[in-house]
């Protein structure tokens, strides 16, 4: 099969104007309702893992009556194989700050916080310099909005929005009971919008090019393009902006090494796509997941080791708060080890599968709920590798 080259898209990293905050200046002249409508028309969905419509989130927060509201940028990028947010913050930070400011303007927040992953501490100074310029801009424009950087403490689960909020409040990063959702009761009980780095940057892109232009990319259900962190057995590792609606087949053809047998889409909490499903699997919200990462595995890789590594990761990174996730992750890990060693019968994986599905329905947050994604998709597609 001939490799079909992807359309080069540069929405996120392109058009980085040296004259600062031109787009934001124009945005601030528009009515908040109009901005939200534009975002809703664009069909932009959260670029984290959940995919909640961004315009709607802002609309909900705007609707809340509260003197204090917050805008939080989730930069706790910890999903395995994901490194796009780091790149955005390093290369085009003003887009993120502009997106946050637009959000603050729409919902009536005066305070923004960037929750920066512990390991990204090295870029704090660089970001702070950008923030100084940003604060200069907002002051000149009489726009009451400031942004602080809050350093995370190295926990995976603080990528979950309510755990992230707990962390900022000075507690352990543990998810809250929902509802209420952060747009109603978030940081210090105030309405709060938590969006991913890429979501803010994309919002800013949409406000520059307009919803109509953005809609030219993607599918009816997944508009626009998105960044992917491509790693593993690839000839071209790194960040690539792809149109949503692309099939895995197309991506593998362009970036894959030879003999790719599976692609893990969306990191540890995402899904394993085996070769036989490459053509029918579309990257987008209508498909399994968009995630941020694609990890390619070729024929030389042991899928048992892949699964084992993911489970080990979860057993360590579960916050431990809820039963299904804290104990379930450990049991899945010990379970596949025992089957592999022949200490448990092959049929034991059915018990483990049931456990994973129960974790999906009864865990407190997305972490525990998503463990079943890699577990079941790897197990079902590579059963022999896992069992024997």
């Amino acid at each position, binding site marked *: 099969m001939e490799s079909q080259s992807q359309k080069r898209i540069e929405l996120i990293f392109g058009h980085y104007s040296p004259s600062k905050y031109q787009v934001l200046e124009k945005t601030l002249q528009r009515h908040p309702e109009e901005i939200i409508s534009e975002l809703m028309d664009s069909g932009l969905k959260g670029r984290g893992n959940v995919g909640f419509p961004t315009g709607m989130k802002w609309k909900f927060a705007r609707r809340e009556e509260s003197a204090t509201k917050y805008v939080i940028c989730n930069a706790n990028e910890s999903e395995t194989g994901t490194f796009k947010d780091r790149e955005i913050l390093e290369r085009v930070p003003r887009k993120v700050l502009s997106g946050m400011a637009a959000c603050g303007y729409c919902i009536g927040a005066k305070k923004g916080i960037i929750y920066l992953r512990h390991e990204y501490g090295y870029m704090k100074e660089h970001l702070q310099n950008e923030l100084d310029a940003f604060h200069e801009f907002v002051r000149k424009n009489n726009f009451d909005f400031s942004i602080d950087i809050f350093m995370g403490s190295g926990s995976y689960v603080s990528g979950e929005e309510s755990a992230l909020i707990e962390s900022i409040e000075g507690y352990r990063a543990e998810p809250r009971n929902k509802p209420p959702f952060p747009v109603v009761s978030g940081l210090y009980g105030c309405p709060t919008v938590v969006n991913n780095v890429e979501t803010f940057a994309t919002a800013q892109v949409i406000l520059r090019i307009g919803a109509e232009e953005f809609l030219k990319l993607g599918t009816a259900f997944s508009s626009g393009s998105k960044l992917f962190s491509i790693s593993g057995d690839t000839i071209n590792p790194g960040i690539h902006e792809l149109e949503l609606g692309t099939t895995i087949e197309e991506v593998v053809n362009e970036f894959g090494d030879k003999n790719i047998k599976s692609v893990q889409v969306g990191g540890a909490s995402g899904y394993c796509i085996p070769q036989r499903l490459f053509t029918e699997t579309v990257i987008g919200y209508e498909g399994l997941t968009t995630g941020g990462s694609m990890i390619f595995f070729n024929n030389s890789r042991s899928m048992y080791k892949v699964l084992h590594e993911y489970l080990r990761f979860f057993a360590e*990174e579960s916050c431990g*708060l809820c039963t*299904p996730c804290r104990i379930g992750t450990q049991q899945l890990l010990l379970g596949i080890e025992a089957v592999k060693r022949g200490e448990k019968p092959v049929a034991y994986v059915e018990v483990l599968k049931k456990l994973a599905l129960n974790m999906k329905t009864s865990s407190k947050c997305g972490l525990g709920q998503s463990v079943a994604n890699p577990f079941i998709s790897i197990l079902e597609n590579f059963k022999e590798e896992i069992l024997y």
Partner: protein
Amino acid sequence: MEKSLINLTINNVPVSVGEGSTILDAAHKINMHIPTLCYHPDLRMAGNCRVCVVELTGSKELVTACSTAVTEGMIVSTNSPKVRTARKTIVELLLSEHNADCTKCYRNGNCELQWLASEYRIGDHVYHDLVKEEEKLPDSSSLCIIKDDSKCVRCQRCVRTCSDLQDVGTFSVVKKGKKQKVSTFFGKPLKDVFCIDCGQCTSRCPTAALIERPLYEEVWDAVAEPGKHVVITTTPSVRVAIGEELGFEYNKHSDAKVIAALKLLGFDTVVDSGYFNDIYIVELCTEFLLRMKQNNEEPQKENLPYITSCSPGCVEFIGAKYPEKKRLLSTCKSPRLIFGALIKTYYADKKALNPEDIITVSVTPCTAAKNENTQALKGIADVDFSITTRELVRMIRQSGIDIQRLDASDYEPLMSEHSGASLLTEVSGGTTEAVIRTLTELVTGNELAPEMLRIMSLRGENGIKETSIRFAEVRSGWEFLKDKEIRFAVVNGSGNASGFFEKLKENKNTYHFAEVMICRGGCIGGGGQPIPVSSELIKARASILYSLDEISGLKKAHENMALNNIYRGFLTKAGDKDNQKILYY
């Protein structure tokens, strides 16, 4: 504001509850049982254990009944296949992490995890055993509380109890994932960290991860030891609560039956703690008046408010959190220690016994009492063993005594009389009421006005309660108190102490007298009371004691004639220095 009603169905049964109610509240309303574990009515909601998951029509994921607010038209099912399999899985997982050594466990038969296991018939070992060998060695460094991590289900009730309810914060959750656990500061032994031994965690732990240090075996041994004369006292709090675990409601015969049971257990003498409570109140009034006098003469010393110290743990709590206030604490021994001291002196004298042959046992609702002792006689402890209500229940169960079928028995006549006031000292605000009764008559020489027998502002569940009195007439010697407003404060539970001390800072010498009780509700809410505990039960215990006071012929501590005997014959007058070792720290 009237809350609007929300209509929903649970297992097809329609139910209407107020806005803001949870699914669990709604289920309770129609007597539908939903199992829980991390939920506790006294504590902030958590949603950790996931045992109470239920299915909502239209929702992919299950939700926890304890934390999810009802919405109009909600369709809930609590026993759908999805719920049942999730719940069973959760219980199985919890058991895999639990040292399920049930037959040897202190909480065998009264363990919430065991109940869940038996409800869901967890028979086979589905999962790997995750209990670490090193966890199987409990931390028994504390004299009051034993912590066994291998029994912990990570429900965090203890964490919430200790931080939110008690404002102590001995426990917190540390680490994550498979290493997550409830730990003391840097995992140090309990004896080396700030813990006031209140035991509130032990009465809210669903398993045996936190228990009181049991001493009943030692008590059994003492009873059996030849040549020893064992004297026991129970407090009113113990007697009003003991039936909760033994299965009977408190009635007018209960006290006499408890006495009979204690005698059957082999105790030589049973005395009434109410008698010592009365002595305590008289001494407390005396020391308080002396403090007031001192303050009148040397106000610059700022020796007020006078803070009661009878709640064990109070000294430790104030010493650690508000060290600068420690000098304000009363130096009166608690009634329990007065009991021990008088038994080994006065009683020994009267009965011609060698104090060394007497063993004193106090039964209180208090776990901290195990760590509190004094010596009236050199080298001889006032109280030899302090056991809790729960331990006494265990002794009665072990003995095979059917307490309800026993004939009534009496206290040792030397120490049997008590006033209604003595009962009140067991309830938050009651010590203050009892003090006001005695203080008024001491200072004015007139009989207390009947309406002063019920000071409603000092009753109830408020965190900080206040009242003030003013004497229009005073006896000679107390002129400085004439028309002076004397202000009293009650701190109901250590969790409210910070609010009180903040208030003190704002307004110096706002209060003259402060009653500080570590446990909410007072002694009746002690950490050693029967499990389960709830604010409803504490209210019920309080109302029994209030009604006993109402019907009591003797309302004031100083009217207790038996006290006159001891003060005339043995002790010198109240507050006197000669009584120092017996009645004061």
